[in-house]
Structure formats: structure tokens, C-alpha cells
């Protein structure tokens, strides 16, 4: 076993039917962490708890929604001087292709999320929180509603929670099918009852978010990690996993592996161990070829390491042994993102795989910014043309140039989310794209349809 003696925290009790009740959660020591934190007084000047913010900083918890931003630091950026109400928006939009972890937490461990929410709200001095849950998640939504109803009945939400004198209200908010509502400002627009249009940053939500008030936006998994941090102490939590890549991570492994699934473990694991040992190897006895390490918008890795260089200029010849943590992947010019690992074996046609992705991002562009709206459309047309065997010489240069012009010129990062995979696919698997353009067909027997 790669990770010895590690007991899952978030997924403790996952997949056990009926395990989601308040009674069961409390039997396992649930809500002790929230009780402890709610007994801490807030600083009257700022109405927050600086010591708890420090504690979260010390734990090295990074946001699990995709950006990996340090949670304690985010909380310290909240405009505590503002006289306006503060809000919490919990991100359970979970729409980045490959990602499917929040759903399991909300279904099987909803009280851990509610406890995390309480800890965050008290620490940052927030009275009203919303859980933005994607519209397709009906069962998940109902589970959360039921768990919150239990919490209200028990007095764990509502007025004077645990005798703290403070009020905490949390409302589940249902989306209705739009990927862009996972982007934090798009989420807030949708929460306010509008189209899910992202907004220009700055101001960041921590300063001016929902209803133009300071708003903390955190992912479900991020918040669900808090009870564990309080229970074991930030110091101990920060020691799980490699330095500065602390705590347990949930890897969502999909695609061509024998045992796809959700695996919670510290970030010591290498890609090869994750695939070969944890997930039972590549399906059909084939070899791995390309792996997206962190959700479909992150640059793909080429398992044999050919075709590109690491940020230090060296050839990466052994990408398969890369360690699956934030910093290591960043050094390899990709990102851990939401830790959604999408595995493609040697018989995968990379042109068709990329076409699937650009189609997705074009479909999900909200259309506000020209480079994203038009650029993603062009990319879909261009890759589609190659895919249909009508590619022309020079198409690859055009692709790279269009993608290159999309980054950094738009309101939100969706434009980068399509530009990054295009750049990585075309650069790292160039010979496959060239072959497709030249011969009008894939060098792989069975390209993905759709």
C-alpha cells in the first residue's frame, strides 16, 4: 500500500446507506469541532476570530474547487471593515468534467459539510450562507435539505447555536444547468437571481461579492475539511502529505482504468501508483498514453514524457512517476485543479478527445467576452474540421495562435480553460494532429465519436 495507516476523513462512511443521519455523525464525534470553535469569542472590532484564521492558515489548507488558493489567506482578505452583511457561498456546482467528489460528500456526509460551514461562518463573522448546488443533483440536494432540517431541529442551525448567542442561517440554492455557475462570480450572479454571468475581478468576492457585500466563496470539500483540521489541530493536519500540500485529497479517477472511482489519500501518491496500484491499472491490458491530472481544463500529461519540457527547461522523460500534489504538477506546467484524473490509454485518438473538450467549452461559454465566445467557437470549428478529415496545412499554427490570444484577456478563466488543453494537446501530441491533417484520418483505429 502506498499510503499506510491513512484513514479517510471526508469519505468516512461514504456509500453506507443511512449513514448520513445526524445521529450517526454525532456518534463519530460530529459537531465537537464546531462546538469548540463556536465557544471562541469574536474580536468585537472586526467581528471575526483572528486566531482561527491563523489556525486555518497554519493548516496549509488549499481550496479544493480548482484554483488551490490557501483558504486561511482567502478568509483574511475579507473586507472586515465594511459595515455591510457578510455572506458565505458554498460552491457545490461541480461541473468541471472529471470531477464528482462534492456530490458524494453532500449525499453521504452532509453534516460534515454543515459543521464546516458553521466553523467558517463563525470564524469570519457571517450570519447567512448559501449552498449553490448544481441543478442536476436532485437526490443530493434533497439529502442536503434533509440534513439541514435535522440541524435546524437540533438547534445546530438557527438562533443561538450551541449557546454562542450567534445566529447561523444556511439555505440550499439550486442551479439549473450551466457550467459557468461554478466560476465564483458567475455563481454569485446566479445566486442573485440573474444569468450566471461572471464579473470582472477585482473587486474580489471577499471585498464585494453577493449583493455587493463581502462574500467568502469556498468549495464543498474545502469546508468539509475544517472539522478534521479543528479536531486534530492545524499542526498535525499540515503534516499529512508533502510540505505545503497538506491534508487529504480526493482523486476522482475516470477513463481507461480498471477501477475508476474516488480515492481519498494524502498527496504523496504518484500518478503511476494511483493508476497502477490504486485503480488496478489501465483497462484492456493496454498502456497509458495521456492523463489529465486535474479536471478537463488542465494541461494534459504525456505519459512517456516526450514532446515538451518542464518549467526548468529539462525534458520530462518520466511523467508517469510525477507526484500528484499542487506544487509538483505546477512545476510540470500543469495543475492539480480539482484532482480529477482523466486517463486515456494508447488507443485513444487525441484529436477526437480534444474535439470533445473544445465542444464542451464552446457550449459553456457565457458569451460576454469576444475572445472567449468567438475564440472557443473558432477552436471548435478548427478542431472539428481536422476531426472530419478536412484539416489544412497551417491549421495547427492557427489553433495555437487562437488559443494563445484567448488567455488573460477575458472576464473569467473559462477562456483559459479551453486555451490550456488546446495548447497542451497540440504541442504534446503534435505528430498525431499532423498525421490527421495530412491523411484526413486518425492514426488511431477508433476515434471517439460525438
Amino acid at each position, binding site marked *: 500500500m502506498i499510503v499506510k495507516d491513512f484513514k479517510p476523513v471526508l469519505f468516512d462512511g461514504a456509500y453506507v446507506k443511512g449513514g*448520513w443521519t445526524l445521529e450517526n455523525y454525532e456518534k463519530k464525534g460530529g459537531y465537537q469541532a464546531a462546538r469548540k470553535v463556536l465557544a471562541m469569542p469574536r474580536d468585537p472590532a472586526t467581528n471575526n476570530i483572528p486566531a482561527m484564521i491563523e489556525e486555518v492558515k497554519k493548516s496549509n489548507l488549499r481550496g479544493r474547487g480548482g484554483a488551490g488558493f490557501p483558504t486561511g489567506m482567502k478568509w483574511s482578505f475579507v473586507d472586515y471593515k465594511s459595515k455591510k452583511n457578510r455572506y458565505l457561498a458554498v460552491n457545490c456546482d461541480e461541473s468541471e468534467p*472529471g470531477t464528482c467528489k462534492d456530490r458524494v460528500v453532500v*449525499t453521504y456526509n452532509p453534516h460534515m459539510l454543515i459543521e464546516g460551514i458553521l466553523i467558517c461562518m463563525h470564524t469570519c463573522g457571517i450570519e447567512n450562507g448559501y449552498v449553490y448546488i448544481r441543478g442536476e443533483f436532485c437526490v443530493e440536494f434533497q439529502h442536503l435539505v434533509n440534513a*439541514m432540517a435535522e440541524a435546524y431541529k437540533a438547534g445546530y442551525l438557527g438562533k443561538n447555536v450551541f449557546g454562542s448567542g450567534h445566529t447561523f442561517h444556511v*439555505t440550499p440554492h*439550486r442551479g*439549473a444547468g450551466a457550467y459557468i455557475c461554478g466560476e465564483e462570480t458567475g455563481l454569485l450572479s446566479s445566486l442573485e437571481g440573474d444569468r450566471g454571468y461572471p464579473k470582472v475581478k477585482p473587486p474580489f468576492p471577499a471585498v464585494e461579492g453577493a449583493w455587493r457585500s463581502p462574500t467568502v466563496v469556498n468549495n464543498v470539500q474545502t469546508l468539509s475539511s475544517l472539522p478534521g483540521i479543528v479536531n486534530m489541530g492545524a499542526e498535525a493536519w499540515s503534516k499529512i502529505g508533502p510540505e505545503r500540500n497538506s491534508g487529504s485529497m480526493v482523486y476522482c479517477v475516470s477513463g481507461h482504468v480498471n477501477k475508476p472511482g474516488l480515492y481519498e489519500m494524502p498527496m504523496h501518491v504518484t500518478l503511476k501508483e494511483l493508476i497502477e496500484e490504486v485503480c488496478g491499472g489501465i483497462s484492456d491490458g493496454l498502456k497509458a498514453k495521456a492523463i489529465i491530472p486535474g479536471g*478537463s481544463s488542465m494541461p494534459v500529461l504525456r505519459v512517456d514524457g516526450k514532446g515538451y519540457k518542464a518549467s526548468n527547461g529539462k525534458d520530462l522523460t518520466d511523467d508517469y512517476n510525477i507526484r500528484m500534489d499542487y506544487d509538483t504538477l505546477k512545476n510540470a506546467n500543469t495543475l492539480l485543479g480539482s484532482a480529477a484524473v482523466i486517463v486515456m490509454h494508447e488507443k485513444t485518438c487525441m484529436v477526437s478527445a480534444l474535439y470533445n473538450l473544445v465542444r*464542451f467549452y464552446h457550449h459553456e461559454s457565457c458569451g460576454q467576452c469576444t475572445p472567449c465566445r468567438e475564440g472557443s467557437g473558432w477552436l471548435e470549428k478548427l478542431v472539428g474540421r481536422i476531426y472530419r478529415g478536412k484539416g489544412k496545412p497551417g491549421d495547427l499554427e492557427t489553433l495555437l495562435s487562437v488559443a494563445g490570444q484567448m488567455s488573460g484577456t477575458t472576464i473569467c478563466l473559462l477562456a483559459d480553460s479551453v486555451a490550456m488543453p488546446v495548447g497542451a494537446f497540440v504541442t504534446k501530441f503534435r505528430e498525431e494532429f499532423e498525421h490527421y491533417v495530412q491523411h484526413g484520418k486518425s492514426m488511431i483505429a477508433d476515434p*471517439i465519436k460525438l
Partner: protein
Amino acid sequence: MAFQFNDEMKKQFEWLKQRYPTRQAVLLPALRLVEAQQGFVDEPSMEYVARELDLAPAFVNGVFTFYSHYRRKSDGEHVVWVCHTLPCALRGACKILEAFQEHLKLGVGETSADGKFTLKKAECLGSCTTHPVAQINEDYFENLTPEKVRDIVLALKNGEKPPHLSNGPSLEGGMKHWGPLADAYPEGK
């Protein structure tokens, strides 16, 4: 007849109004309540919601059309969403879509003449490790095979509970929306 919330939906609607600092913020949940009551969102119900929330009907319509997952009046009784984003596509989503097309005798985007089924392509449904996946109304169907698709369609056609429901917990007693919360904490604020 003009649309109006029934007692249950009215209760939830009033409760939701307590929970947000603005009326407009109740819009998305309110459209869900409409859907819960009559099975779809249409012009009269949008006008009703607009009136109740002091919003312009055109604004409500603009918001409604931004989102793909609300049920339209033209949708069949069973809306079948077949995911075809990369993880599902790698595991044969194409064959699943073909199987649905074959057994439903429908093309993508079409609704059957008897109004029973609508077939749509979905982007990632957020259940990628149990691919390929389809959603039918509220339920997820995971790790699909063409054979499973055949069984599911047959059962639905016969008005039976479909087999191969998600491995996860199913909805006992159906969707209750915000009802349990409104009951647990009637004062709202």
C-alpha cells in the same frame, strides 16, 4: 387558467423570500417550485413569478433561457439526458446514446408523439467515475451498457420503476424541495 402556486409551493415560496436579502434572488428557486407543481416552466407561470417578485417578465424569461436544465412545456414526461463529455465518451457514451435512440426511436432533441419521452445530450453530469451516465428526470443511471438502456426504456414504457438506478441512495418519497426546511424552521429568519 392563469398559473398560481398551490398551498405547498406557496408555503415554500414565502419561506424562501425570508431567506434572501432581495426578491430577485428567489427567482431560480421559484422557477423550480413552478416546475415541481406543474412539471414544466411556461409563459403564464413565468409571468406569475415575475409579478410575485416585482420583476419584468422579459427579465425572467431572459434568466430562464440562460439555463438548460429547467423543464420546458415541450419536454416529454421522461426527459433523458445522456452525458457525452470526455470521461463518459472514453467509456462508450456514444453506444449509450445510440441505444437510447434505438429503443426510444427518437433523435437527439426530439420528443415522442405520445409525449412520453424526450432525448437530449448532456454535458458532464458530475458523476464521471461511474461513466457512462444518463439522467432521467431526477434519477441518475450509472455504469450504463446498451443492455441496461434496453431494460430501462422497457420499464419506463410499461410505467414501471426502471432498474439500474444509481447505486447511491434514491429519493425516498420523491422530491420535497425546500419543504422539510420550511417545516423544521417555519420562522424563516
